[in-house]
């Protein structure tokens, strides 16, 4: 089933400039893997060397953080929207 993946501005240069991509997948992990296969430059920004989602990257299904569900194993339903959200922090 195709789901929409929303790409934040900071990562679009690694996804051929796309702000939204439609991909097939039964769970979040499958969609993220297909995203990384389609845009290999994006992979290092999403995953660490162990293949885990980076701490500075959040992924939401609709309004829910996948870390509050089954992480990459979270199943997807038709029409779900998957949003990649960069962690934003700083300070002097």
């Amino acid at each position, binding site marked *: 089933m195709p789901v929409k993946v929303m790409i934040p501005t900071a990562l679009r240069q690694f996804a051929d400039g796309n702000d939204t991509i439609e991909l097939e997948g039964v769970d979040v992990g499958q969609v993220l893997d297909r995203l990384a296969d389609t845009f290999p430059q994006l992979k290092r920004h999403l995953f660490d060397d162990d293949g885990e989602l980076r701490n500075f990257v959040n992924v939401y299904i609709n309004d829910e953080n996948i870390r509050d569900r089954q992480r990459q194993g979270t199943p997807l339903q038709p029409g779900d929207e998957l949003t990649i959200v*960069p*962690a*934003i922090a700083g*300070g002097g």
Partner: protein
Amino acid sequence: MLQLQLKSEHDDAIRGHAQRAYPHECCGFLLGRDDDQARRIVRVVEAQNDRGDSQLHNRFTITPEAFMRVDKAARAEKLDVLGFYHSHPNAPARPSTYDLEYAWPVYSYIIVAVADGKSAKMTCWLLRDDRGRFDEQPITCARETGSTKEIH
């Protein structure tokens, strides 16, 4: 490097937010569009500093939920989240090591210094793709008359 173009109302809004938040850090979003000549800011949106601990005076955090809400609204208006602003109370308008640690490429990071409750120097920074350091991004401020000036 594209210069960052603000309107005077944005300059006023960022400085006003920084002064109201003092001695804590303020933070917010920069929405707009890039074209061949400039990174043009169309709107600034205040965010709540969600740091929620004793480090509000020198740290800021924007929640993912706030990011999603603003990003969705921006997309609906054909705008992009192009960066963020935050204040440095009683500290210079230069990125800290902590700023470097949390920054992303592409985004513009405005920093406004606040000294004794009054806004002072404002700067903007872009992270290099290798994440090694920031480069300063020139800011121009467009007045209603159409004139522009560099701001500091």
